[in-house]
């Protein structure tokens, strides 16, 4: 286990270093933050632009800017926004709660729907329930979530007046965004659970358990579902990146003050420190989650031992 963790840590650092290079140099290919500060209503003279570039340290050689960025990162300083001079870390921290609650709400909705639908589809294979489950999955995969979001707003907020259309102001504001995010994920997930369950249900040990007279629900939950969980959790871990992408769009539609909008605005404004800091932070988060997923295998299936049997 220890060896595994160390190896993964080294792995993570190498990937983060690669990402830092890509983010740092790519964003610098896309335009001038000094000019972006004038945003259409402004009118930069050359002198004014030079003055701002100097004040932001953009007139220094690239390698020097990169060295400062990495040096700051290593000492835990993510830099300051070009726009409002606020520390990048506190900008992310302020918005992280909103994003996490939306992502968690989405995953919760997905799990609550996908498990019953997936399990029932597999158990009642070929029946009406299975057909419903498969249609649901296909529909879930096919709808774009921003479209679903706008439809939800029109139906539940504008016409029925049941729920608020947008904003971030208490649990009921979470319902529509979570549903929009969760339903799409639920479709894919239900399909995956169904097929893994079907695989497992054909195994010999299930037949043995049946022969021993174990109750059907116990077979399904304890024996079959447990073994079907590995691909599901792996999928969820990998899906986190896509989930964050979906969150960005939904944050726009529901005017949700999360990290997605922070990054989007920062990219538009060419606010380099904020883009660099947030991308590094999100990458780190993604890798952390995948590490946790790997570790969780051992708990779900004791046969899987980390760090061994690979070489």
């Amino acid at each position, binding site marked *: 286990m220890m060896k595994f963790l160390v190896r993964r840590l080294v792995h993570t650092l190498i990937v983060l270093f690669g990402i830092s290079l890509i983010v740092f140099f790519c964003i610098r290919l896309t335009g001038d933050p000094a000019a972006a*500060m004038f945003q259409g209503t402004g009118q*930069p003279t050359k002198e004014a632009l030079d*003055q701002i570039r100097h004040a932001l340290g953009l007139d220094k050689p690239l390698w020097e800017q990169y060295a400062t960025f990495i040096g700051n990162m290593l000492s835990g300083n993510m830099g300051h926004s070009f726009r409002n001079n606020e520390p990048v870390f506190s900008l992310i921290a302020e918005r992280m709660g909103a994003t996490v*609650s939306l992502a*968690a*709400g989405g995953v919760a909705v997905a799990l609550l729907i996908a498990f019953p639908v997936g399990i029932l589809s597999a158990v009642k294979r070929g029946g009406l329930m299975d057909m419903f489950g498969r249609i649901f999955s296909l529909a879930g995969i096919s709808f774009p979530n921003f479209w679903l979001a706008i439809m939800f707003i*029109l139906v539940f907020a504008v016409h029925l007046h049941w729920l608020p259309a*947008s904003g971030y*102001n208490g649990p009921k504001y979470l319902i529509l965004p979570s549903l929009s995010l969760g339903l799409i994920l639920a479709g894919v997930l239900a399909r995956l659970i169904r097929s893994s369950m079907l695989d497992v249900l054909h195994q010999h040990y299930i037949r043995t358990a049946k022969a021993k007279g174990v109750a059907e629900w116990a077979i399904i939950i304890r024996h079959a579902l447990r073994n079907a969980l590995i691909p599901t959790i792996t999928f969820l871990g990998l899906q986190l990146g896509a989930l964050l992408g979906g969150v960005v769009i939904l944050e726009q539609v529901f005017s949700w*003050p999360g990290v997605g909008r922070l990054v989007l605005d920062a990219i538009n404004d060419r606010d380099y420190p904020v883009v660099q800091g947030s991308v590094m932070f999100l990458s780190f988060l993604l890798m952390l989650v995948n590490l946790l997923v790997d570790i969780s295998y051992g708990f779900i299936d004791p046969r899987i031992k980390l760090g061994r049997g690979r070489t």
Partner: protein
Amino acid sequence: MKKKKTKLFSAALAVLLAAAVTGCSGGNEPAAGAGSGAASGSGSGAKKDELVVAIPSDPGGTWDPIDTFTVPWATVASNIFDGLVERGEDLKLEPGLAESWTYKDPKTLEFKLRQGVTFQDGEPFNAEAVKFTFDRLLGPDGEKSPQRSNYDSIDKVEVVDDHTVVFKLKAVDPVLITKLAGYGAMIVPPKYYKEVGDEQFNVKPIGTGPFKVTDYVKDDHVTLEAYPEYWGGAPKLKKITYRYIPEATTRIAELQTGAVDIASSIPPSQASTIESDPNLTIQKAGSPTVSLIRFDVSQKPLDNVKVRQAINYAINKQEIIDTILNGFAKPISSLQGDISFGNNPDLKPYPFDVDKAKQLLQEAGVQPGTKLTFSIDGSDAVFKEVAQAVATYLSDVGLTVEIKPQDTQTMYNDLIPKAAAGSMYQFGWGGWTLDFDNTAYLLYKKGQFWNPSYSNPEVDKLLDAERSSVVQDDRKKIFFQLTQLLKDEAVDVPLYQTMTVWGVNKKVAGFVTPPDERLRLKDVSFQ
């Protein structure tokens, strides 16, 4: 052992669920007014005194007047701050914190200040505050400020007595008075600023305006409360909440639910949704923002004036306004709207004339099927349609147009300045000073940032002449001459002046649609 692990999983699920609920209520900052808006929208009977306004974006995390150049800032902050000079709802210049001003000589400007004015924390407004404001902007604090260059004609500000200040200028600046009504020249309180420091001032600013900031959550909302001691009289509303809602569809939905009373930036294509709602109405005003197609005159065949004129004749601008923009725009003849100083109402745009266009192209020796590239802002859905119409008009006269959607910032700040945006490119411009000066100078003067290839000594001469005079009649004549020359040269294709379109609940009274999107809400109330 087995049971323990199943429990572990269900516990994890429970934590996830709990995080979903508490995570949300944990960040619970009551966007005041949002809820009550919905409540009274459904007819509680009591007269409302809290207004909710939806705008597309946050001003960028700072309220400091010298840090910003965004329209969302102005939409909110015009209620928080005052300048020495102000613009009324009709955009005419009028006294603000200065009661009057006189040019002692072209480089010395004296202001008599309004007496008995206080900042929202009770700090008195006086000559020291004016001096402090401009010292800050022009000193080290203003180094990163995109506002500084607007005011760099000011050498120093001298205090004569408590209510008199003199601006000593480095150079004659005919647009200075106009600029004093703008963003960076808003007067800030010296005592409060020194007390709280820059970071705190960014999020909790204080000015002399009719409303003060009480609560600000970035990317979510800002709440303002009335300042009853306001020098222009107490506001009628008690509270205003601005909510940031980036999606136009969501803004309109919120307007329909009654949670929002006023929504800005309504796309022309969605105006009918609002018009068909019995509780809502559309209000519009001509804005200073204009939309045009610029040419890269260094490229063939656009180096030939006849080709440029031909393209001007070939595009049916009125049809674009009527069909694509649903009438929410006005024709223009130069790079400025009809409310801008320097606009010549007698100068007519190129008429739509296909035959003339074809003839000019033939004279210029342009072969049918000649290819032109046309860069547009890829995030601008409306202009995408305009560009497709333009491509069709030009194909009717034998030119093939390839439309290239670009990222907004890359296009404006990278491609255009480097003359890499292709033969033609979209350009949008909001002349915030409402004086043709900055627009003309920065877009037609040789070597300016956004003018990589056009150069004409006669244009340069006129621009310099206009800048060196403070006699408005003389400047006007120069501008008329300049716009005629630019039209003859067909330097660009002025397409239309846009309109600001607002969705408003019919219960809102006294709301005047601001052409410059700077909301003035002091006299707004509910019926």
